[in-house]
Every structure is written in structure tokens, then in C-alpha cells.
């Protein structure tokens, strides 16, 4: 019994010593990941310039070669004096002295052109040009008939609402008469 106790104490001591050693060696590292989220505000400023063209009303637009040659021009209205005879025409009107329903002018970019009269005859324009810097005066050489040419002037030219307004004058050398009138032409 004494031996048993003695051996038991011994074993206990050995066990304790052994366990103590085990205790010191059981320390363990553990990594904890601590996630830190950083939010970065990345502001992008987009300059979005919108140009709104508001109503542009230009009542007297400078007449240009581009406008003139842009399309054929037919008469909307013509009033004048052909030598001593009053002349009046309004497209669609009922009190016209002459008919210009089928008449029109073409001005080419090479400064030539032609008129188709109301009967379908062609009258060549050998040359046309603006005769002042404001483009309010326009002259052209017009073939009345074979071998007969006259110079026609369109004065006080205005371009309004897509129509050409002007005063027209010439001397018809073929018949020998003078003309002065006011005309409005619109694109054909």
C-alpha cells in the first residue's frame, strides 16, 4: 500500500510535469482578417452644353449667289407698267392682265441662266451678277429673241420668308418699250 501510494505520487508528478510541458507547447496563432472597406467617391462632372437655337427671324436676309442659284424661281406677284399698259399678275389671282403660271427663271452657278416664258420658250441669260456689295442690285443679260439682247435690272432685292422681292426695270430693245415693275418670286 505504501508502495502503491508512493508510485502513484510519482506517476502523478511525472504526469503533471508531462502535461505542463504540453501546456506550454499548445499556444496557437490564429489570424483574423479584419476587412476594412474604403469607399472612394469618384465624381465625374460631365459638361453637357445644349445650345438651343431659338426662333431666328431675319426679315431682310442678304441675297446670296447660293440662294439665287438654289432653285428655279417662279412669279408669285408682279405689278408694273409695260410701256403704257398696267400689268398685274398674282399666282392664283382672278384679276390678272397676263399669265405667268408656267414662267420661271433659272440662274446657274457659272453666272449664266435662262428663263422659260409662259409659252415654254427659252430665253438665254448670257451673264448675271450682283452689281453692288450689298447684293441688293442684280443685272443680267437677257435674250429677248435671236440676235436681240437687253439688260434687265432687279433692284432693291430682298429675301424674305423664302421669297425674293425686287423692283424690275429694262428697255425692251426688240419691241422698243420700257418696263418698270415690282415682283415677288418664290422657289419653283
Amino acid at each position, binding site marked *: 500500500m505504501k508502495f502503491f501510494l508512493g508510485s502513484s505520487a510519482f506517476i502523478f508528478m511525472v504526469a503533471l510535469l508531462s502535461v505542463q510541458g504540453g501546456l506550454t507547447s*499548445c499556444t496557437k496563432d*490564429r*489570424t483574423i482578417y479584419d476587412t476594412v472597406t474604403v469607399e472612394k467617391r469618384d465624381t465625374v462632372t460631365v459638361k453637357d452644353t445644349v445650345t438651343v437655337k431659338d426662333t431666328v427671324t431675319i426679315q431682310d436676309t442678304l441675297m446670296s449667289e447660293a440662294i439665287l442659284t438654289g432653285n428655279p424661281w417662279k412669279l408669285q406677284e408682279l405689278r408694273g407698267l409695260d410701256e403704257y399698259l398696267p400689268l398685274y399678275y398674282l399666282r392664283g389671282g382672278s384679276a390678272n392682265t397676263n399669265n405667268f403660271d408656267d414662267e420661271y427663271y433659272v440662274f446657274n452657278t457659272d453666272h449664266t441662266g435662262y428663263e422659260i416664258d409662259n409659252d415654254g420658250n427659252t430665253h438665254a441669260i448670257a451673264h448675271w451678277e450682283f452689281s453692288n456689295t450689298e447684293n441688293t442690285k442684280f443685272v443680267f443679260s437677257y435674250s429677248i429673241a435671236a440676235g436681240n439682247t437687253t439688260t434687265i435690272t432687279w433692284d432693291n432685292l430682298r429675301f424674305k420668308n423664302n421669297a425674293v422681292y425686287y423692283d424690275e426695270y429694262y428697255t425692251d430693245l426688240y419691241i422698243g418699250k420700257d418696263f418698270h415693275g415690282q415682283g415677288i418670286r418664290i422657289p419653283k
Partner: protein
Amino acid sequence: MLIVVFSFVQGGLTSCTKDTTIYDTVTVTKTDTITVKDTVTVNDTITIKDTMLTEDMLTAHSWKLFEVRGVVEGSIIYYQRGGPAIDNTESFDNEHLAFYANHTGLLVDNAGASHVMSSWAFANPEHTKLVFTLYNNSTIQSDYTYDNIRYKNGNLYYDDYFYDNYAGVDAHAQEIRIPE
């Protein structure tokens, strides 16, 4: 006894486990892009209008001719104030025209004779057409039309057409009048 001791010690072994916390900071960058639309609206309004002729402008003073070009019953008429006499087919140096606020008026011709204007009125809301009646002599009157009126730089531009009941002639002309 030994089993008890070992059991005890085993329990001690399980409880002796010790954590050492190592903080490993991981930075995660989240980019939060905000697009700010900075809309700039530019109104580009250009309004260019012809000056409308008003009654006040018309009646403010008398008007004298600066230039006339036209045809009177088959004859060319041309006049420019101060122009070469050889170019002017007739003189209007002394002629002037007055429109009164009471819608009457007076024309003084180049010879100095007065012609009463019995009435005048604008014939359209845009005031680009003006009609008036004028005495050619003491009894005969004629109607005159000024059409396509433009008021520019204080001057009047227009087309003039009429039938003169006294002389029995038609006329059509383009004219410029300036303040007298």
C-alpha cells in the same frame, strides 16, 4: 486514480488553447462614380425685324424725294437729288409731301403749287402699304399707292403706282424719300 488525474489533465489540455489575434487589415476600395450632368442651355435668339413705319414717323415731318426711277405712260422717269442734270429726266428739288396726323396732307410740287391730300391711310396691318387721295387740280383727284414700304435709316423706300386722272397717265416707280 491515474485515470482521474489524466482525465483532469486532459480537460486542462483542451482549455489551454490560446488564440493570438493578428489583425490583417485588407483595404477594399470601392469606387462609386457619380456622373453629374451639368447641362447648360444657351438660348441663341436673334430677332432682326424691319422697322415698321408708324403714323408718328410718317407725320413727324415733310418728306422730299431723294430718288425716283420708273415709267410714266411709256416714258422713263429718273431723278436723284444732287445727281447730274443730264441723268435726271425732271427735277423734284422743290417738291415735298406732308402727311398730317388728322389723315389729310399736302403735296407741294416742284413749281410750288399746292395739292391737297384729302385722306390717307395704311392699307394693311404691317403698314407696308399706304394709300392716299390727292387733288391734281381744284376738282380732279387721283388715288396713289405706296407699296412695299421700308423705313431704313430715317428714310422711306417704296414702290409708287397710280393713274393720274388729270393727265390720263399710268405710272409705276420705285422711290426714296428723306426728311425735309
